[in-house]
């Protein structure tokens, strides 16, 4: 048991790499919060139960988890054009992520973030979903186009 705990502690130590990641594209205001990370896509229409504020598509890697008030770190935007309206509608009911970070993004999510006033970063040299631990506290600075890992509390 103790050996297992020590091993887990070593893993946690090894996993934390405080660093600043630079994006090529950015929008919105500076925010900080807990990261919800998955190597998966994002569509407000396809993937979410927007009333409950959770990922609802069964095949999604974050199925069942709440996105409200968290900084989503995902691979890419997916699906239809509805997300362009939906982020603003979600914002009006406070069922919205704090920010969204993508490896690659399509115009729809950018247009939606612009209308909904949601911070967004996209375009990294490495896979951002592998660099940010799930549950880490991160800070998004769109002016500087950076994501800073403040604390890797990794769950």
């Amino acid at each position, binding site marked *: 048991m103790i050996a297992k705990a020590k091993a887990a502690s070593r893993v946690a130590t090894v996993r934390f790499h405080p660093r600043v990641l630079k994006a090529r*594209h*950015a*929008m919105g205001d500076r925010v900080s919060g807990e990261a919800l990370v998955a190597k998966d*896509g994002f*569509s407000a*229409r*396809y*993937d*979410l*139960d927007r009333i409950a504020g959770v990922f*609802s*598509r*069964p*095949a999604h890697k974050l199925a069942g988890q709440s996105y409200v008030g968290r900084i989503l770190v995902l*691979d*890419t*935007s*997916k*699906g*239809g*054009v*509805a*997300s*362009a*309206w*939906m982020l*603003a*509608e979600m*914002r*009006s*009911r406070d069922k919205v992520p704090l920010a969204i970070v993508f490896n*690659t*993004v*399509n*115009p*729809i999510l*950018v*247009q*939606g973030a*612009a*209308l909904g006033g949601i911070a*967004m970063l996209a375009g990294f040299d490495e896979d951002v979903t592998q660099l940010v631990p799930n549950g880490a506290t991160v800070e998004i600075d769109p002016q500087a186009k950076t994501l800073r890992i403040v604390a890797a509390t990794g769950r």
Partner: protein
Amino acid sequence: MRLNSEEKAMLAGEMGPVPKLAIGHQVQVGDFFGARDFVPVTQAHIMADTESLGEHGVQWLENLAAAKKGDRTVRIPTITDPRGTDFSKARELKQAPWMLDLERRAIDAFVKLGVSMTDTCINYQTVLAATRGEHVAFGDTGVVIYSNSVCGARSNFEGGPSALSAGLTGRTPRYGFHLDAHRRATLHVRTRYTPGSLNDWGALGGVIGRLAGNYWDVPVIEGIDRAPTSDELKHFGAAMASFGSVALFHLVGITPEASRLADVAGKGMRRHEVGRKEVKALQQSYAVDAKVDVVVFSAPQLSIFELRALAELCDGRRFKVPLLAVTSPQVKPDSDRFGYTRRIEAAGGTVFAGMCFYQSYAREIAEANGWKRLATNSAKMVNILGGYGYVPMLASMEDCVEAAQTGRLA
């Protein structure tokens, strides 16, 4: 972004608050993508069903529509994607009055803005197809991928706020698929399989969409052995866009920019082989239950030829479970005149116009009607409806019609 004098005047509010808001939104998006300037567009197509808009979005539209007449009018032909209902048959869907009220308010606002309520996602078949090299601002991913790929037009995915902004300003930021550089292929897909049915075409599109995986990937497909029909490419493109967020594909020897592979081949293309096995695997992944609660033909809306085929399959049958067929307001009168509507409805089906099934409060109407297990020939729709609590199943039009009669999918 570099703005000309007219664009600077718009941004300064010299042409009123509505163009100012519209171009401000466009500059924000253009700056994000590093657009150097605007490109004039000839048409805009707005996706704006009220399930997506919500009360907040409808109020936003009403605020724009309250501006002074003349300041608020779109500058170019601006049309709409399907609405969230067919008012004449909303009761059959068990839609609530508040849904219809929200729809009416949104429509009133659009009309005040000068938008033409075409309510279709197949405008390239029914309204006015864009031509090769024509810059447009289209919403609905199926419309964009068809227009870019089959017509050779130039559009990004323009969500509702951006498409409306393009209508109001007559331009859009010049980035993405407006530029030659982004239209070259990034992955080369070889196949020896030419699909037969529409759901096979959709499934192949879905397989390639998954391989592509993001908006900036452009597949070039080699090996299709005949010229596909417009309906086949409609399902193929709509599914590719849905599964992969893809906005442009090329078919060697078929689509206008790819007479030869070398015309569109990009440097360092990824290479894949796909065939019947991958298509069947995708279809099988949705074959999870034999029982069916509802059969739906929608997404994209049906052409007159699809309704003709459906009418022939419905003759002499009596359905046990609801069969819904959704088309555009431009096609429906012809379906009525040609007797297709009557034949489908004589078997117990219903033909809707001007809406799309998944844009019509799909979750709420599922609960109101007790629908969960849904059969369709639309690969796009099976990809979407899982998130709405359905168990969607993909089958041919023939098997779906049989399922409507027996309640079971063979």
